[in-house]
């Protein structure tokens, strides 16, 4: 009895590991291929390079069409960090109002906010483009950053509202008695306590902005303004069979920030997804 039980446990582990291996294989193969010489990339099925070729990274880093890859990286960083700061501040402000203040039309405003989460971005896409075009913002980072400072990602407001509602109200009341105004309560009491929600907001805003291809494709046209996704696409467009190595190398590099954040903040990922259903 115990023997068959142990056998089924082993079988289960084996199945789980096998599926995991098959799933990760493409990614591992890409990482391996980024160190292989160009002529063997598509003939070698194995992951481990038989001969290490570091030049792929040098060639990729030197960039494309006179633009070093570091430019794409720094552009992406500017956009992503700008978006994160905007989302964290504007969404937490709105969340504080919804969770702690009483005001007229609160229920209606909250309902409206939830509705905007469900709205496909296609519906606002063209008027937004026209608006930003008239402001002269097209081909700059502003259309990618400014909306985040205006709390357009209702999802993060909702997430933070839920979190703040779980915080004890006594702290706010004690602070009021001590003479704190609402702004001070928000800044000194609620924000520090809501750090887990702010970290979740930070992580997912960063990842989504980093990977956001559609808006960057629409709003950025000048190669010097290109972000990592657009830069990679340049590689794809202009690469012949012979330089897949550098492209894979830069692909690996582009995934690295996401991966590092994931490893550092795993706990927030699992909790964020499990409690609120964030799409990863």
């Amino acid at each position: 009895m115990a023997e068959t039980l142990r056998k089924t446990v082993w079988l289960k582990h084996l199945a789980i590991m096998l599926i995991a291996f098959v799933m990760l294989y493409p990614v591992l193969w890409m990482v391996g291929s980024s160190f292989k010489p160009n002529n063997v990339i598509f003939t070698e099925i194995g992951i481990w390079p038989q001969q290490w070729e570091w030049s792929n990274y040098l060639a990729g880093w030197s960039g494309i069409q006179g633009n070093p890859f570091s430019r794409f990286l720094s552009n992406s960083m500017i956009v992503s960090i700008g978006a994160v700061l905007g989302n964290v501040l504007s969404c937490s402000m709105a969340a504080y109002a919804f969770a702690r203040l009483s005001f007229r039309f609160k229920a209606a405003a909250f309902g409206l906010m939830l509705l905007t989460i469900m709205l496909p971005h296609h519906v606002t896409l063209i008027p937004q483009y026209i608006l930003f075009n008239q402001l002269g913002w097209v081909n700059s980072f502003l259309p990618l950053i400014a909306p985040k400072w205006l709390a357009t990602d209702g999802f993060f407001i909702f997430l933070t509202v839920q979190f703040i509602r779980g915080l004890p109200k006594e702290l706010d009341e004690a602070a009021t008695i001590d003479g704190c105004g609402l702004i001070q309560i928000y800044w000194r009491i609620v924000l520090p306590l809501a750090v887990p929600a702010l970290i979740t907001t930070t992580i997912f805003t960063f990842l989504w902005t980093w990977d956001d291809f559609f808006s960057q494709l629409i709003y950025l046209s000048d190669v010097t303004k290109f972000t990592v996704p657009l830069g990679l696409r340049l590689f794809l467009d202009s690469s012949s069979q012979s330089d897949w190595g550098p492209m894979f190398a830069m692909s690996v590099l582009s995934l690295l920030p996401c991966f590092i954040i994931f490893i550092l903040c795993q706990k927030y990922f699992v909790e964020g997804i499990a409690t609120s259903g964030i799409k990863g």
Partner: protein
Amino acid sequence: MTASSMTKPQKRSKRAKKSAASPNNRAALFFLAPWLIGLICLTLGPVLASLYFSLTDYSILASPNWVGLSNYTEMLTADKLFGTSLKVTFTYVFASVPLKLIFALGVALLLNKGIKGLGIYRTIYYIPSLLGGSIAISMLWRKMLGGDGLVNQVLLKVGIHAPDWVANPKYALYSIVLLSVWQFGSSMIIFLSGLKQIPSDYYEASSVDGAGKIRQFWSITLPILTPVIFFNLVMQIITSFQSFTQAFVISNGSGGPLNSTLMYSLYLYKKGFAFFQMGYASAMAWVLLLIIGCFTFIIFRSSRGWVHYEDGGK
């Protein structure tokens, strides 16, 4: 209001006036200001504007002329590619969403029963969801499933001569479906947390009564999990209808071969930003909203029949 007017005579009780019960309209306006500006300028205004543009022939180059419903009638009667893009998108949604959820549930069940190393497995299975939205992975996919790509090299080893998956109109869309199913990790994590909520005495009681594993799955696990399945289903359908990046990269922006990967979003993008038919693209956006709305409504309506809540109520 009454609480604050009662304290009015005492000047020094200004602080008490701010107690939680009294309304703080002005403060709320301050905290909500960014959101309100965004709501009006970037959401509500654009929603109305897009409805208006959808009734015009607007291109960014010339001012809009009112054309009534002709964008919509063109879509339904004259524009063959519109029909194609609908068919492609429906095929994609109906193939990828169920497969993804079945995989997610299956692996979650495998991982659930107190297995050792759950944390590591969960991490590994989540990695595709983490990276899958990126351009890098879409490019890898395109190259992996290409004529002489990794997949065909492996198949060749076992003696199968396979076609170029992404260049063949029969298979190209399914290579994108595969990419979507590959990212089942985040749904799986939601299933795992749902499975954790099921009290173990349900299983103990039923095995005393002689129920086998399969019987337990159908009469305990699955019914209790229906709210989670419902949630995953709604989220996946909404996002799948809007899928863009993967089709764009794998078909190199064309929706090819032979329009077999011309997803709705991709066609909308082409109409609006390649041909500058922004009125038409706006109309397409409204049709998409309508389609997603209908689906969400149908799932919500049907959920009364198949979603079970533990408290037995609404």
